[in-house]
């Protein structure tokens, strides 16, 4: 176990060095990130608390509904953790260059395995702190539990984050050994994709939008309870933790302990199973993964590249070359399109769920509410899309930036290329989305014009903002775009984008409510208010989209490689 102690110590040193690095960062930046993290944590907590209170307010069945929410939450989390752990274990065990170093050292395979295993646990579950903890605290507060319930929270959570990784780890070890490293990747991807789709379909089937303009809430609750019952199967581990939490909150600690023990014992069994399997097959699987043919040819997508090349042939050669290069990199990176598909999958589910809304309602209050909520949803998806996919664009040039730094091109051209591609792409997708949903919602011509105008403005501002901030705060040492986004610049990008979207939508919604719903202003005042909104938001759009681009350009001009 000396080896484990040594690698463990190394991690402590790395953490200490990171902490020292943070102390060297500008104080304002550290304060900003801390405030942003706290904001998200408390925001999540407030949202969950409000939703659980909403459930609790139902006469007779309120407390039971809150418990059902706990079952559903732990079930969803358990499935999500298991699926994400599968991907993380696969990458952590077989794709890390650190393994080449570790296997040359006099450390047993099992020690190396468990070192990587616990890294996977941490990688796959840090987000749990930002979702699981606020949820259980909100639940505990509403249930008025005893103080020592809070002390038990780590006891529920620690095994809960280890077991999914334990299950995923066994699956990955077996798959890589039985098939091969490369084949396992495709089989696992198909498996995870299918399971995710099935889970999302089932989940959306059970949690249909609450039809607050209709009175069939009983139908909704009945539907919810029917779907949740599957997650209360006595052999489903997610149920044991949920049951333990629910029973402990009711002061029935003895029964709660029974379910918790069942979970802990299962976790220990899986740890033991991992130990036995890893001793036998971990190294051989890793070694064979290193020996697989490394030749990688381009076997797909050339027609699309030719089409893109033709489509953008009117642009300067450099711009077209960069577009084609970016398109090839995107198409050949399954991790990127997997996340892209998730975005559009969620959008698809959203559009399908729109059918559940009362599309033919005459009540102007609800009509405007729904149309502006739809607009907000579209703009927020747009904000998420631009932050996730356009903010990292400049950083992803990474250590290859010397190629562009050396070429006889200006950074103005480079920024313009990223912007024009992003803007045109986002504009097409978002306009298509807003027009489709507005047609489904049977909106008026005026609201259609306003919606499409807002989306056009938002596309320009959000793409400019993401590319500009991505150039101001590039992270060239990181090649994982998800990690690039989670830095200071990405967080700032998200907050500014969110604030912009809220401001624009609210500033347009107010005149509509005042005129169409409350009739507190005349038509002339409404026209005046709308003109002002267009003007103010037009200026704001230019400010939000263009200023970061100018600052980003200056930053690139002064950059050294």
């Amino acid at each position: 176990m000396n080896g484990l102690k040594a690698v463990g110590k190394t991690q402590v040193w790395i953490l200490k060095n990171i902490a020292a690095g943070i102390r060297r960062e500008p104080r304002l930046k550290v304060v900003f990130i801390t405030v942003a993290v706290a904001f998200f944590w408390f925001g999540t907590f407030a949202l969950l608390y409000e939703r659980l209170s909403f459930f609790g307010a139902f006469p007779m069945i309120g407390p039971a509904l809150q418990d059902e929410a706990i079952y559903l939450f732990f079930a969803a989390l358990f499935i999500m953790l298991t699926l994400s752990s599968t991907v993380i274990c696969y990458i952590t065990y077989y794709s890390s260059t650190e393994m080449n170093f570790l296997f040359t050292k006099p450390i047993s395979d099992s020690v190396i395995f468990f070192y990587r295993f616990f890294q996977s646990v941490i990688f796959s579950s840090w987000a749990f702190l930002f979702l699981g903890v606020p949820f259980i605290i909100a639940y505990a507060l509403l249930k008025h539990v005893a103080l020592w319930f809070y002390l038990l929270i780590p006891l529920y959570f620690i095994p809960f984050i280890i077991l999914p990784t334990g299950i995923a780890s066994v699956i990955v070890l077996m798959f890589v050994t039985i098939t091969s490293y490369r084949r396992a990747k495709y089989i696992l991807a198909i498996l995870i994709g299918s399971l995710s789709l099935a889970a999302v379909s089932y989940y959306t089937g059970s949690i249909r939008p609450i039809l607050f303009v209709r009175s069939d809430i009983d139908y909704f609750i009945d539907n919810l309870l029917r779907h949740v019952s599957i997650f209360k199967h006595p052999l489903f581990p997610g149920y044991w933790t949920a049951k333990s939490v629910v029973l402990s909150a009711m002061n029935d600690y003895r029964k709660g302990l029974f379910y918790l023990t069942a979970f802990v014992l299962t976790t220990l069994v899986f740890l033991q199973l991992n130990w036995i399997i890893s001793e036998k097959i971990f190294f051989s699987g890793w070694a064979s993964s290193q020996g697989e043919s490394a030749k990688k040819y381009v076997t797909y997508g050339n027609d699309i590249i030719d089409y893109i090349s033709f489509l953008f042939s009117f642009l300067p050669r450099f711009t077209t070359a960069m577009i084609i290069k970016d398109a090839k990199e995107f198409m050949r990176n399954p991790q990127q399109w997997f996340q892209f598909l998730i975005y559009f999958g969620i959008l698809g589910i959203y559009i399908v769920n729109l059918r559940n809304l009362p599309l033919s309602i005459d009540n102007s209050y609800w009509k405007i509410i729904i149309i502006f909520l739809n607009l907000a949803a579209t703009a927020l998806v747009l904000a998420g899309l631009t932050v996730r996919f356009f903010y990292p664009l400049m950083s992803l040039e990474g250590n290859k930036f010397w190629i562009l730094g050396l070429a006889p091109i200006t950074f103005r051209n480079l920024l313009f290329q990223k912007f024009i591609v992003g803007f045109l792409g986002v504009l097409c997708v978002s306009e298509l989305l807003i027009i489709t949903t507005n047609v489904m919602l049977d909106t008026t011509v005026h609201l259609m014009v306003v919606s499409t105008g807002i989306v056009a403005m938002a596309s320009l501002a959000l793409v400019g903002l993401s590319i500009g901030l991505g150039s101001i705060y590039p992270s060239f040492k990181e090649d994982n775009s998800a990690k690039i986004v989670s830095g200071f610049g990405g967080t700032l990008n998200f907050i500014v984008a969110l604030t912009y979207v809220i401001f624009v939508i609210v500033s347009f919604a107010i005149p509509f409510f005042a005129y169409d719903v409350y009739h507190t202003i005349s038509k002339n005042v409404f026209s005046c208010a709308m003109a002002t909104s267009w003007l103010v938001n037009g200026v704001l759009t230019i400010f939000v989209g263009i200023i970061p681009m100018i600052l980003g350009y200056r930053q690139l001009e002064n950059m050294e490689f």
Partner: protein
Amino acid sequence: MAHGFTIPDDEDRTRSTIVIDLSNLTKRFGDTLAVDDLNLIIGRGEFFSMLGQNGAGKTTTLKLVAGLLRPTSGTILVAGYDMATNVLDAKKIISFVPDIPYVYEKLTGREFLYFIGELYNLDKVVYRDEAEHLLGLFHMQEYGNQLMESYSHGMKQKVVLCSALLHDPQVIIIDEPMVGLDPKSIRLVKDILRERADEGATIFMSTHTLNLAEEVSDRIGIIHRGQLVGLGTVDEINSKAEGAEEFEDVFLKITAET
């Protein structure tokens, strides 16, 4: 002046054309002085090697000349272009090969060369022909359609070398060119660079390999703690090192700390 050596006055050298002209070049990274008041002139068709220990300032100097870094003070002229004011024109005739060949891993070797051809605005037919010629020269044709993520370090280095030669540069700046290359490729690179120099291109190379510098260079500069402490042909440098017989001894004597 350092360690009893006199740095030859470059102004006295007769050259048809000055291609690289560094005047009082200084580069600081925070408190660290990487390049300290460097003066150097390199002529057309000259093969110049810069030697120095780790952290002596070789790579920094090369990157300054290539326009990847900006000087703290001093001027850099490349083929008469001031790198502070006319960098785009200079870049058209410069190529740079870094010590670590970072490339777009999701492109094939051939696609990477085509991409470079587009960046330099070369004629499509010309750069495609030249890419094939260079890939053939480096025995990389059969790997040209493989993604570069599957290449070894040496193969990536070869593709980067191909990309550096694609636009027929007048100035080739090259940092540790032989790292990761097999003996056959090392011989090939030496021959190609020598040939290019004989045809009039200026080669500015940094290396740790003393034998390589001795073998191919017209002149050598030895940099130590950011300062040029030795400059001249191998014979000139050797002749000024009292008591040292081999070039290796000369180098160690010049760069000795005390």
